[in-house]
């Protein structure tokens, strides 16, 4: 083949510019840590990365939902535990009050304590969480119990999606914990006890014991339910954290630069470039100087 002078320059220029361009790409990838700077670098991977980003976002959403509703559940559980303690104390007072040797004054003092328990019970039942009143069902802007112990909420539960396709109830209502809808009306029973004690009615006080126990059991059952829900949330969260890790691993495999192979390629490239420059120098330097 006949070699014109310009061909030698063109060849050198083309090979050098190809090497420089690869070098720039690699340097960019290493410094950004990302293999993909634009979708066209690897369209299939770019598309999958975008899907993974969406999945990761969903996973993070589930986890943040879980952590939000979990704090409300913890408050509910604590509230219910407190309520069941109050019922236990009320039972003790009822037992004492049913003792025939007590005087009317003794019973009045017991009645005073029951009144305090009632106040504490109301304040516990009207605990507030992130949605509003914890035990009012979905009517969270209303207190669960009014001053006379009437239930103002409804029986709907808060439902959220905690993992793909899994929607679950994450709240307990005052209806099931405190009202006759769940078994016995706790506040009404406390009122009955107080009335019996105030009217020095040992029989009446003894009579409330069954209802007090039913109420306590009902509250404890609801408390156990919150525990079950929390367990369920925890295991969902655990599964989600595994998913999140897996998604992150896939994202990294698809999108991250392997620093070792990239660096070694860059080193190799620098060597090649030096050689190419040396060759270029020889190619461009010979010939014409000798002839002309």
């Amino acid at each position, binding site marked *: *083949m*006949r*070699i*014109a*002078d*310009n*061909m030698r320059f*063109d*060849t050198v220029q*083309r090979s050098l510019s190809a090497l420089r361009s690869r070098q720039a790409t690699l340097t960019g990838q290493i410094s950004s840590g*990302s293999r*993909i*700077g*634009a*979708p*066209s*670098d*690897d*369209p*299939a991977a*770019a*598309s*999958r*990365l*975008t*899907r993974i*980003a*969406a*999945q990761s*976002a*969903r996973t*993070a*959403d*589930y986890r*943040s*939902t879980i952590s*939000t*509703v979990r704090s409300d559940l913890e408050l509910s559980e604590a509230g219910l535990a407190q309520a069941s303690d109050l019922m236990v104390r009320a039972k003790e007072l009822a037992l004492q009050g049913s003792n025939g040797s007590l005087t009317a004054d003794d019973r009045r003092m017991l009645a005073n304590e029951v009144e305090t328990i009632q106040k504490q019970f109301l304040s516990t039942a009207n605990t507030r969480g*992130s*949605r*509003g009143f914890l035990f*009012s*069902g*979905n*009517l*969270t*802007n209303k207190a669960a119990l009014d001053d006379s112990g009437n239930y103002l909420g*409804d029986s*709907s539960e*808060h*439902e*959220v*999606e905690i993992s*793909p396709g899994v*929607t679950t109830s994450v709240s307990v209502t005052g209806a099931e914990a405190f009202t006759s809808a769940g078994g016995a009306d706790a506040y009404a029973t406390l009122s009955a006890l107080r009335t019996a004690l105030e009217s020095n009615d040992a029989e009446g006080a003894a009579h409330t014991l069954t209802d007090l126990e039913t109420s306590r059991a009902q509250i404890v059952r609801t408390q156990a339910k919150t525990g079950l829900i929390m367990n369920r949330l925890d295991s969902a969260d655990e599964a989600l954290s595994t998913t999140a890790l897996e998604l992150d691993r896939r994202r990294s495999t698809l*999108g991250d630069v392997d620093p070792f192979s990239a660096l070694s390629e860059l080193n190799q490239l620098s060597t090649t470039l030096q050689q190419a420059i040396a060759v270029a120098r020889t190619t461009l330097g010979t*010939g*014409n100087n000798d*002839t*002309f």
Partner: protein
Amino acid sequence: MGLSDVLNAARDAMAAQTFGITVTGQNVSNVNTPGYVRRQALLETRDMGPNSFGGVQAAGIQRVADRFVNQRHLALTGQSGEASTRDQLLGQAEALFNDFGGTGLGTSLNALFSSFSAVAASPTDLTTRSAVLQNAQSFSEQVRTASTQLQNFRTDLFSQARELTGQVNAKLDSVAELSGRINQAHATGEEAADLEDKRDAALVELGGMVEIHTYTDGNGQLVVQGPGVTLMQGEVARHLSIDIGDDGKLKVLANNVNGTSSSGNDITAHLTAGQLSGVLTVRDHDVVDMQSDLDAFAFNVAGQINSVHAAGFGLDGSGGRPLFALGGTQAGAAASLNLNAALKDHPELLGASSSPGELPGNATQATALAKLGSTPIAALGDLDPGQAYARIVGSVGQRKADAAATLDTRQAMTAQVEAMRQSISGVSLDEEMVSLSKFQRAFQAASRVFTTADQMLEELLNTVGR
């Protein structure tokens, strides 16, 4: 045959070798001139019939070029021009869908679904509800911006096509003008190599912009054949013009020879190579496809969200409100997408509850909205919103990657044929050095012949004249 004939022959020889050196000098001077085709001095014996004294004469110079290689070069230049334009333009379009640089459409789509999910967890929190409105607003803004930018891009491409057409016409004029001067030179027997160099260079530039091939007609005149139309024949160029069709697509028209334009000469369908074709393909295929993908995405995603949201009830107890203002048709949906003005600054109106009787704690509808993020939409090929967006990103990337790959191939092929062209027509200084010595030696020899003949003549004169 006498001594004076020898003197004449030596004179001719010295003149011819000097001409050779001149041509060599011309080649050496133009070693780096783009488009320069090396010349060869054509020497021939002076034909004087029976009276021939063996003289030499310079018959002229020849441009060393291969017509077929040049044709191939012209064709590949067009293909490279098309590929490089498409690659460059798609690079600009790709930037609109590049989430890898930070925030993008995908990010705001994810943020929107995240905020639905947050409202599902805390339906009474007004700050959380406001976040939905903000995210819906920024999502619709991003969609609108992408759509507007694609539309602006098409407008830009129209101007670019018009500019290119202007350049094509100017180039055609200059080719026609050069052809005229070349024909004139040929008619008067003058040398036209320089003009032909210029015309070849102009043809290569023209070929980069629009697909052409050339041939020489029976009268030895150059004909430039364009896509489906003769662009230049016998020093007369036919101009191109562009127009927008009823469908909004570009039309390339070939004017009549007298300069008037005629819609009958629509050559758009014939354009396959050259920058003009690249601009056309990107404007009326690639970008149109991207726009319709974006429209389908916006229309269906926002439509689904709207229908779920409208079934929900705000804290005020009423429902039926869509989250987005959205046109009724898929075409143009992306450009018109916006947050429902009635909801702006009214987070309490967000339809998070499924029942007006269970306010404010009911978040069933917000949960349903969050679920849409992973619910396949039939109209989007059974992909959920995130996947549908990923498909757009993938297809935009694929277009650009394909264009880049095509460009690589065509550039390599062009480089190869360019090397062939250089191999035939390029100046080799080594070769010129040899030519120089060759002509110099021949000149020296001729001058020796002259001296010898001169001495003989002198001797003869001395002898005879005594």
